[in-house]
């Protein structure tokens, strides 16, 4: 993208192009296979036979370069925090982050005495969708992903931003 991003005046062609890109991005959000803790098991369950994330076009990628969505599934600790940041930086634009579970959102049950637990992954990377639950059910994760898709569809990647 790079050179084309947010460079155009709003008009009907740019708007349709925006719509096309939004459609493409929202329809194939490949997620990053990045399980941290308990929630990773539920993430696996949602990708497995019963819930099947591929229905909405999600495909797991294990290299951050090829992924669009990072699902932070589980508790982020201090030791891990800098790695999470690095992995986020390694992803190619456009990139989105889902904070899955209360641990990733706020520290969850480890909030009060967890001297080694990061109190919310949003302290190190920007988060697009928070999915509550400890752990969230696969249905909840899918709901979060649908919300993310809605969000991507409203984006205007080409249109120049007016302040």
């Amino acid at each position, binding site marked *: 993208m790079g050179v084309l991003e947010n460079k155009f005046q709003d008009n009907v062609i740019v708007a349709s192009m925006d719509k096309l*890109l939004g459609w493409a991005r*929202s*329809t194939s959000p490949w997620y990053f296979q990045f399980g941290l803790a308990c929630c990773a098991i539920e993430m696996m369950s949602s990708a497995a*036979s019963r819930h099947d994330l591929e229905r909405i*076009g999600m495909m797991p990628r294990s*290299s951050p370069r090829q992924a669009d969505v990072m699902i932070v599934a589980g508790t982020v600790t201090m030791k891990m925090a800098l790695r999470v940041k690095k992995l986020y930086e390694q992803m*190619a*634009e456009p990139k989105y982050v889902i904070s899955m579970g209360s641990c990733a959102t706020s520290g969850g049950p480890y909030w009060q005495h967890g001297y080694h637990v990061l109190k919310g992954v949003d302290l190190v990377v920007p988060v697009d969708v928070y999915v509550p639950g400890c752990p969230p059910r696969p249905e909840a994760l899918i709901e979060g992903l649908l919300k993310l*898709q809605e969000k991507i569809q409203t984006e205007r990647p080409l249109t120049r931003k007016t302040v």
Partner: protein
Amino acid sequence: MTVDTLINWFATFGDFPVLSFILAVVISGIPLFLVMALNAMIAVYVERKVSAFMMDRIGPMGQGPGLHAGKWGLLQTAADAIKLLVKEDTVPESSDKFLFKMAPFIIFIGAFLGLAAVPFSSTLQVVDFNVGVFYIIAVGSISIIGIVMAGWASNNKWSLYGAMRSAAQIISYEIPAGLSIIVPIMMAGTLNIQELIQYQNGTVWGFLPNWIIFNNPFSFIAFFTFFISAIAETNRTPFDIPEAESELVAGWMTEYSGFRWAVFFLSEYANMLVVSGLAVAGFLGGWQSPIPGLFNTGAWGLFWFMGKVSLLIFVMMWFRWTFPRLRVDQLMHVCWKVLIPITMFNIFGVGIWKLIFG
């Protein structure tokens, strides 16, 4: 063939050989590229669906908010392609930038050149070389240069491992693949693909089509050795150690993103098409109908050819989602200690067979 026909046609307008050659190549090259892209899109969709059905899932269904990916997710791969096209093209800071950017094109060229000699039907073939079989095998190994470039330039240890494994694997499996394809060449006595297919006209044993696979026991074995080597050459499971997901993250493609990575994908599926095409042409009668003498003309040829190729590609997918993966040394073991002796023996056997029955 297409190229020759075009050159001859341009010749009727006047004598400008260089220009007409370039024009002919471009005109026949663009559809070829489209075939390649279309093939990848359809194959990826089919692969996702096939894998889903094998795993008790339903695969892409285009469910989602707003404009989704159509009925049964038919537009899924189109969306994937557009997304990859506009995704950021990351080039790692510590990489060898020139080689890093070049590698996808080299791999693409390998697949593209191979596709040019695939006989889609008796007339639909971009170039009909007199050494077509040899040519496909030869250009098939161009991609290995690209893979090694990609692995080295990424400056990533996973990529390096993947590239080294891939180089060892593809170069090794070239040998059994080449030795297996010698069997049909010996039987037909030609390296030209069209002539090879023409040779397989008629019936054998009274009722079977005269395909080389049914001709004698040695060619029957040769088909399987060739198919196994072909799977290995396209880096598919159970020989997918270069990009072994559970070991090497994504192998030599680890650092690639966006469209460069999509080119790898494109080439992988084009390679599958090429090797399956060669297997079909060499052993399964190419565009010949499975019912000897019937439906053997014109567009039916394309239908039969693509049908057989699709079957082989389906079998490759079936393998991928069923088998575990071999280890590097076991892979080499299979190649050097099992396949190569068998193929050697085959060549010998076919020679004897031809001497006695031919």
